[in-house]
Every structure is written in C-alpha cells, then in structure tokens.
C-alpha cells in the first residue's frame, strides 16, 4: 500500500514538472553550460591552467551553470508547492538572458521561455531572431581586436544593434496584442520582413506568420505550414538545429559588412602559423591568413554547395521517380534500370570520378554531387508516388476525367513531398561532408577560396605542432552537419501525419 502511494506521488510529481516546458529548457541550459565549461576546462588543463581566454571562458560557463541550476531548483520547488510560477521566479529569466553576452545560447533560450507564461509561435520566432542576431554581433565584435576592420563595419554593427532592439520590441508587442488585438501587429510584421534582409530566417518566419494569420483571421482553420513550424520548434533539438543553420545563413550575408575578406585570402608572411590570440582567435595558417575569418567566410561556400547540390537532384530525381512510379511498368523499368547504373557506384567514388575528370572547381563539384544524388531521390519519390497513387482522391480525380499528367503534377506530387523534404535536409549535411572530404583529397573547390575542407587540409599538415588549425574547421563541419541532422529528425516528426 505504502509502496503504491509512493509510486503514485512520484508520478504526480513527474506530471506536474513535465507540464512546464520552460523547466526542461532551463535544465538543458545548465546541463549544456556545465558540459561546455568542463570541455573548456579540460582543454585549459592541457595548457597547464595558464591564465588565458580558454580558462576564463571555462570559469564563466561553470559559474553560469551554477546560477541556472539554482534557478532551476527554485522553479522546481515552486511548481511542486503551488503548481505555477510566480512573477519573482519568472523575472529570474532575465539573468539567464544576460548570459547571451557570453555566447551562452542554451541559457538564453531557457531564459526567454521562463520570462513569459504565454508563448505563442510568434514569440518563439522573435526570441530566436533576437538570439541569432546577438550571436552575429558577438562573432563580429571579435573583429575589433584586429589591426583594421572592414569598411562597412560600423554601419553593419549599428544596423545589427537596431535589429536587436527591434526584436526585443517585437516581443513586447506580441505580448501586448497577441491575444487581444492581433491586427495591430501588422506593422511589426512588415518591419520584421525588412529585418529579414540581414539573412535572419526567424525574422522572415515571424513576419510571414503574422501576415498569414491576419489574412486568415475569422476563419478558424489552421494554416498547414505554421502548424509544422510550431511543432518543429516544440522539439528542442530541432530548434537548436534551425538556430545553428540560421546563424550560419546570417553569417554568410552579414560577413559582407562586418568581416574583412582580405584577412581570409591575403597572404601575410609576418604572421605565419600563429597561436590563437585575441587578434587571431583560431590562429593563422601557413600563409598567415586568419583561420577564424576563413571559417566565417567558409560558411558561405559550404551552404551554397550544400543547397544547390541538393536542389538539383531533388528536381531531376523527383520528376524521374514520379514518372517511373506513376506511368506504365515499362517506363518504370527503363527509368529505374538506368538509375540502377548510377546507384551501383558508391556516391563518393562517382563524385571523385567526375570531379577528377573535369578538374576541381565549385561548378564541377556541384554537378558531381548532384548527379550522384539523383538515384536516391528518384527511389524515394517513386516509392511515395506508388503509395499516394493508389489513394482514393487520385481515383476521384481520374473519375472526374483529369488527364494523367495533371493528376501526377497537381495531386500526387504535392502529396508526396514530405519524405523528400526530410531527405533534403539530411542530404545538405551529407553534401557539406562530401565537399570537405573531396577538398581533403584535393578535389574540392579552387584552393584560394576559403572552404572548410580545404582549411582543414591546410591545417592537417601541422597536426603535431598546431593541432587547433585542423580541429576548429572540423568542429565547424560537425556543427553544421549535426544541425542539419537535427532539422531532418525534427522535420520527420513534424511532418508525420500520425503525430498531428
């Protein structure tokens, strides 16, 4: 009896705590801060605890972890005793938000969730836009320690700060009008769309969501894509993935203003293979180029290659697969047997063969990656079209006398896209990986263009003496690929009709 009661109490406790998603985010906040702090401490230990930036950051993150842990403990106590959070505890979230100044995005996400009880998708978008913008400001600030900055640096920084203030303002507006007078948010949405020009996808989504909701006001149906977005951002890992990709996208655009391309490509023989310092955060390579700036600019080329070499095979493979799956068995046989030839050669080998034959350049790389990806998309699309093609609504369309190609392109393909989207988000990551391994073999982009794989290849020659030259670009690659994998997993769950 007693044991049953204990079990019951434990379960109620668990259920009470699980109802507050902000508690989960805060818990992840201190966990991640602790992990980052410990990793930094370990790498500082390698240097014999000399007082440098690494140790300083390690201490900052460990202290942050302790503070957030204390906040989490207070939240837990209050939830268990009163089943709600008081204003006093919620205001502790602002301390967590302040930790964003040290680059702690985990703490900031927890903090933003804690300060508000009512958190619609618009609010989530606004604070993600805020965080992405703040991260870009932090990354750009590091350039101030250099001898000179880009011409447009001050303009860029001022603009970024203006955007930052706007996102904070948008959060207040959403809080004020979100439930009562939704139409008043129209101006916020338009300004937010303007801010999206900085490459901030969250600002773009924020504007689009508000405008769509205003247009559909009155009719009580939910808009499909907004539903998918809000389900996606309920998944912490998927949201993290979108945040990382969003920051990189912003970096790719904002680096025009706040980063100096000269540091990335001009040789400086007075600064060859330097240790990391404030001026060169990740050191310099064999030609005296700043590795930090090179990695920042590398995001541009990696994202471009990843996205284009995913978009091309989606279109070609998708159409081929749809045609094979929908039309006669003979068409199916011809198309799929031809693609089997491509499929039989492992994609890495095929890419190597094509790039080596036509010379290493960005264009050839994109073509090679695209061709070797076609069969995978064709197979995915074919399987999906075969399933959808047997459903009732297709039968209905046929009974109404629609033509075969109309049914295929207007009814079947739009309903078969979900697995393609999931696969696409995963394969951008794979494309980044393949590009870097080809660059390592000397088959990637042109050598002077800063690309993560070629930066890594350059750094790997100093593996024994200066391993950080190879470690940092590798970490960048992992981070991006991981982010796309998170997004892929999140999309799979968000698009799953069973979970709706």
């Amino acid at each position, binding site marked *: 009896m007693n044991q049953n009661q204990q079990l019951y109490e434990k379960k109620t406790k668990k259920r009470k705590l699980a109802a507050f998603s902000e508690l989960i985010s805060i818990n992840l906040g201190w966990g991640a801060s602790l992990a980052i702090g410990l990793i930094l401490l370990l790498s500082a230990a390698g240097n014999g605890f000399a007082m440098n930036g690494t140790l300083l950051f390690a201490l900052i993150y460990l202290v942050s972890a302790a503070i957030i842990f204390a906040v989490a403990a207070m939240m837990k106590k209050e939830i268990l005793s009163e089943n709600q959070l008081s204003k006093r505890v919620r205001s502790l979230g602002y301390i967590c938000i302040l930790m964003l100044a040290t680059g702690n995005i985990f703490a900031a996400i927890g903090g933003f969730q804690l300060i508000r009880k009512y958190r619609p998708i618009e609010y989530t978008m606004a604070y993600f836009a805020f965080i992405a913008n703040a991260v870009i400001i932090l990354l750009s600030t590091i350039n101030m320690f250099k001898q000179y900055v880009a011409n447009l640096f001050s303009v860029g920084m001022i603009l970024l700060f203006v955007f930052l203030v706007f996102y904070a303002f948008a959060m207040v507006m959403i809080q004020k009008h979100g439930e009562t007078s939704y139409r008043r948010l129209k101006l916020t949405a338009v300004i937010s769309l303007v801010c999206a020009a900085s490459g901030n996808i969250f600002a773009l989504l924020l504007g689009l969501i508000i405008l769509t909701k205003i247009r559909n006001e009155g009719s009580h149906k939910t808009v499909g894509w907004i539903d998918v977005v809000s389900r996606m951002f309920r998944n912490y890992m998927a949201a993290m993935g979108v945040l990382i990709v969003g920051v990189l996208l912003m970096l790719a655009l904002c680096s025009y203003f706040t980063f100096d391309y000269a540091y990335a490509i001009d040789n400086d023989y007075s600064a060859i293979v330097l240790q990391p310092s404030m001026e060169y955060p990740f050191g310099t390579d064999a030609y005296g180029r700043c590795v930090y700036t090179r990695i920042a600019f590398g995001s541009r080329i990696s994202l471009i290659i990843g996205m284009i070499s995913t978009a091309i095979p989606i279109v070609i493979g998708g159409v081929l697969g749809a045609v094979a799956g929908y039309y006669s068995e003979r068409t199916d046989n011809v198309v799929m*047997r*031809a693609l*089997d*030839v*491509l499929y*039989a*050669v*492992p*994609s*890495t*080998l*095929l890419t*190597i*063969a*094509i790039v*080596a*034959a*036509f*010379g290493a350049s960005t264009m050839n790389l994109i073509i090679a990656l695209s061709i070797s990806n076609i069969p995978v998309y064709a197979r995915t699309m074919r399987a999906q079209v075969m399933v959808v093609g047997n459903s009732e609504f297709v039968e209905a369309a046929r009974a109404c*006398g629609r033509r075969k190609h109309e049914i295929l392109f207007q009814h079947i393909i739009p309903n078969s896209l979900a697995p393609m989207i999931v696969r696409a988000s995963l394969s951008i*990551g794979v494309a980044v*990986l393949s590009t*870097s*391994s080809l660059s*390592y*073999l000397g088959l990637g982009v042109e050598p002077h263009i800063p690309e993560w*794989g070629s930066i*890594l290849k350059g750094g*790997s020659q100093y*593996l*024994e003496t200066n*391993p950080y030259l*190879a*470690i940092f670009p*590798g970490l960048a*690659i*992992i981070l991006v*690929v*991981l982010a796309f*994998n*998170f997004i892929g*997993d999140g999309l799979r769950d968000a698009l799953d009709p069973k979970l709706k």
Partner: protein
Amino acid sequence: MLNIVRKSFQKIYGHPVNRYLVLLLGCLFFLPALAIYFSRRKNDGYHLQADAIRQSLTADGTAKRLQEEIRQQVEKKYTFFNKNKNSAEMKKEEDRIFTVRMKEMVEYRMRREHPQLRELSFYSVVDELLSTNGGMGAFIVLGFPAFLLLLILSNSYIKYIFDRVLMMLFVVFGVTFLVFTILYISPMDAAVNVLGDMATPDQVEQFRVAYGLDQPYFVQLLEEFKGLITFDLGQSFIGGEDVFTSLMNRFPITLELTIMTLILAVAIAIPSGIISALKPYSALDYVIMLIALLGLSIPGFWFGLLLILNLSIKVQLLPATFVAGSWTSFIMPSIVLGTGLAASTARMTRSSMLEIIKSDYIVTARAKGLPKSKVIFRHALGNAMIPIVTVIGIQFGSMLGGAAVTEKVFNVNGIGSYIVDKQFIPDTPVVIAGVVYVAIVVSLANLFVDILYAFLDPRIKAKLKSY
C-alpha cells in the same frame, strides 16, 4: 522433371519479355511447331465455326446495331466531358470497343452452340507436343538453350537470382559505359600526363596509337566491353602492370578492412540500439542517440586525423599508418570507417525495435507472462532485423566507396586509394576496372541482402514463391 518444364513453359508464356526470350532461344524447335500450328489451324473446327458465327452476325444486322449503340454511348461521353466530337480519337475508341464486344459475342455464342470445341492456339499446340515423350525429346535436342532457361525459371528462387544476375550484368556494362564516357569527354589528356610536358608531339601520338586512344569513341567502347567479357582488363598506362593482378593484390586488404569494420560496427550498434529502444526517452537513450548522430556528422578523415593525433602522436598506442600483416594497424581505420555504419545501424535498430515492441503480438507475449528477455530476443529481434539488414547492406556499398578517403588518411594500399591515385592521370583501364569491381561487389552485396530477406521474412518468402 519433364512435367516441371511443361508447367514452367505455361508460366513463362504469360510473361511478355521472357516469352520472346524462350521463343528466340528455342527457335529451332518452335519454328516447326509454328508450321504444325498453321497447318492445323486451316481446318480447325473452332476457327471454322467462329467465322461462320461472325458472318451470321454481320448478315442479320446485329453488328450494325451494336456499332450504332456504341457510337451513341461514346458520343454521350464526349459531350459530358466537353471533348471534341467527330475527332479521330473518338473514331478510334469506337472501333476499339466494337472489336472487343464483337469478340465477346462470338465467344459467348461459341460456348453455347459448340461447347465441345476449344480454341486452337500456338500455346496449346506446343503444350500438346511437350506432353509426348517424342516431342519433349525433340525439344531437348533442338531447343536446348530454351530448355535450360525453362528449367532455371521453373524454381522461383533460382529464377529470382537469375533475374538479379542478369540485371547485375546490365549494371556492369552500364557502369563501364558511364565511366568510360566520363573519362572520354574529360579535358584531361592521359598521354600528356603520363609522358610529361616535355614530350614531343610524335611521342604523344605514338602513345595514343599504342593504347588505342586514337580510335573513335565507339571502337574504344567496344574494346572495353570485349575486355570485360574476356576478363582481360588491359594494362595500366603507368608502369604497364596488369590491372587484374594489381586489383587482386589490393582486394584482400580492402576486404579485410571492410569485414573488420562491419563486425566492429554491428557489435557496437545493435546492442546499443536495443538498449535505447528498451528504455526510450531515458537519459541513456538520449546519450546513445546523440553519440549516434555525432557519428553521422563527423567527417571521416577529420576523425582519423584526431585519432592519429591522440593515439599515435601523443600516446603512441597504435601505429599511425597501415603496416601489412599487423592487425593493430587495422584498428584505427576500422573505427573511422565504421562510425557512420554503426551510427545509422544503431538509429535503425532503435526505431525498428520500438515499432515492433509496440505491436500487438509482443504485448500478448508479455501479457501471457513470458519473461522480458525471451520476448525481446526470441520474438522481437528477428522481425526487427529486416530493416536493419537493409541499412547494413546499403551502407556496405558506400563503405567500399568511402573507404577511398579513409585509405588515403591511413595510407592503406586498398582499392579505394588505388583508384583515387590513378584518377588524376586518368589511367583509364585502372579507373574503369576499379569502379566496375566496386559496382560488382556492391551489386553482389545487395543481392545477398535480398536473398537473406527471403529467409528472414516469411512475407517476402511467400511473395517470392509466386514470383
């Protein structure tokens, strides 16, 4: 056994492609059979009666009425869908329907008026021939290739494997064509690359003639196909070594590496996937899945460099480069190569295990009081293995290709690094032979997986039986 051949012929006759293949292979037997068919058809009772009925139908105006009726129907349909009337398309549709209805009518009358008559077809003639000992003997002697084919196609398993092998042959020729074409239109000139910039035009020309590079495209392609059939893969441009021998020298190294990787990856991935699935959404599950995702995201060569840095340079535990015959130098390449495989296998194991555990028959087994371990290992694991085997099969192929990069990092003398080295020249015979070899191994691996399916999954077994 002879009865099997007869049955097999009945089955094959309904299949569009295989039918022509059998007829072609056994044409020495089937041509006389065709002659018998035509001679018999001339005074066959069924045909004579059917013609008589058809004539009577035309004579008493039934055919005309039918045609008019169909015309009205089709016209109504076209009006309803707002389509162009009086078009050629409409006329065609009318004729089509008329022919079908006419045939149905004749057949119906035939069944009622002459139920004892059977329609004489080429198939029935051949079947009758094959039912006699003499006919079968003639078939074995005259149409031996067709006989062999029918024997092969009679067993669904053998037929399945036979079809797959045929497809594999097609893929091998396709891959040769693809790689050769890529190298042919490539702007790189093998002659200049081999001889160096200092070579005179005469020397270059001599080289091209010696290796047949001056021939037109189709002649060279045919040469490649001929070499493929005769297993003569030619000699490499540099060093003039026999390509087949050097491939076979490197083959055991790559195979050893791949198999060791496979064992290592599966031994780690499947248990951790099962543990994850048994305690879903626990801390352990999250940690295992995060590690798996990291394994998918890590660039292989970078991971290799890190391992070399930490285990060879800093600690000097394992050799940094591959040494033939020492198994310790296999460990690091296997770990690097197996990371992706282990990661995707673990993720697949978790999701397929989760799905199976939720199914009704597992709940029933638990409810009847079977211990959990028995339920998992006896009932769930077998069914959960099916998608896992697929993933391993697919990954095995990409592992062979991806091995190229890993082999470069650890200086392994395998096939992958061999192809990459020769690619830059381009040493056409070596590159084609290497890629074709990899394609064959990949196809064989896929075939093996598909056959394995038939033994793992009774549903697929049932499907194969009616193949």
